[in-house]
């Protein structure tokens, strides 16, 4: 399966194996992990929730968009949900392509898109509280567009 929502730990090597092939000369992986400090505040753990059926559809849509924009790339995306501790992998994106520029660009596109259109939410748990996090600019539909440059900094 190209895309997956899972409750189990994500294994980087498994994603890699999904996309490597004889035609590929480059594979890029993005691994999003639970960071301990955000704006100086110490995270204890995160909780991810998904509208699973739709989230999976949206991940597959992103993979399809990538294939249109960068013909020749092959993509695998896995997002984990449930409780995640510091350094656990929340999301992993693997992209293979014959040459490296597309492998980098398509991979970056995937994570920006995930942060726009995939119905997954995270709840921060700190020592002194908890909160569901929303993105800064609201979920975007982008029926046909590409993500803007404004959100390259989370």
């Amino acid at each position, binding site marked *: 399966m190209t895309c997956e929502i899972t409750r189990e730990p994500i294994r980087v090597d498994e994603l890699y194996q999904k996309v490597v092939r004889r035609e590929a000369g480059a594979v890029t992986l993005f691994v999003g992990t639970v960071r301990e400090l955000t704006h100086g505040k110490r995270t204890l753990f995160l909780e991810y929730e998904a509208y699973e059926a739709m989230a999976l559809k949206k991940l597959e849509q992103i993979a399809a968009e990538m294939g249109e924009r960068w013909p020749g790339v092959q993509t695998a995306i896995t997002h984990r949900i449930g409780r995640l501790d510091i350094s656990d992998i929340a999301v992993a994106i693997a992209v293979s392509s014959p040459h490296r520029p597309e492998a980098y660009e398509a991979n970056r596109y995937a994570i920006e898109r995930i942060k726009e259109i995939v119905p997954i939410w995270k709840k921060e748990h700190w020592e002194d509280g908890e909160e*569901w996090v929303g993105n800064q600019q609201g979920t975007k539909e982008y029926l046909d567009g590409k993500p803007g440059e404004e959100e390259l900094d989370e």
Partner: protein
Amino acid sequence: MNKVLLFAHLKEQAGKGKLEVNASGKTIGELRRILERDHELGNLEGIMIALNEEFAKDDALIQTGDEIALIPPVSGG
């Protein structure tokens, strides 16, 4: 009847993950106003609505059995 799925803070606010609403024949925009008026969900500005697992515009028409979901700003990745 229609299922309206709730997630994240909306689910916690409502104390449940699902509402049952008769929205057949109404538009997404009309449903939004009904939900704001009759349910303890607060202001739904900034919340997108999905119809059968796809983002829907305010003028989309809801049919019997359609699955609806309220989509707060996402924060995956």
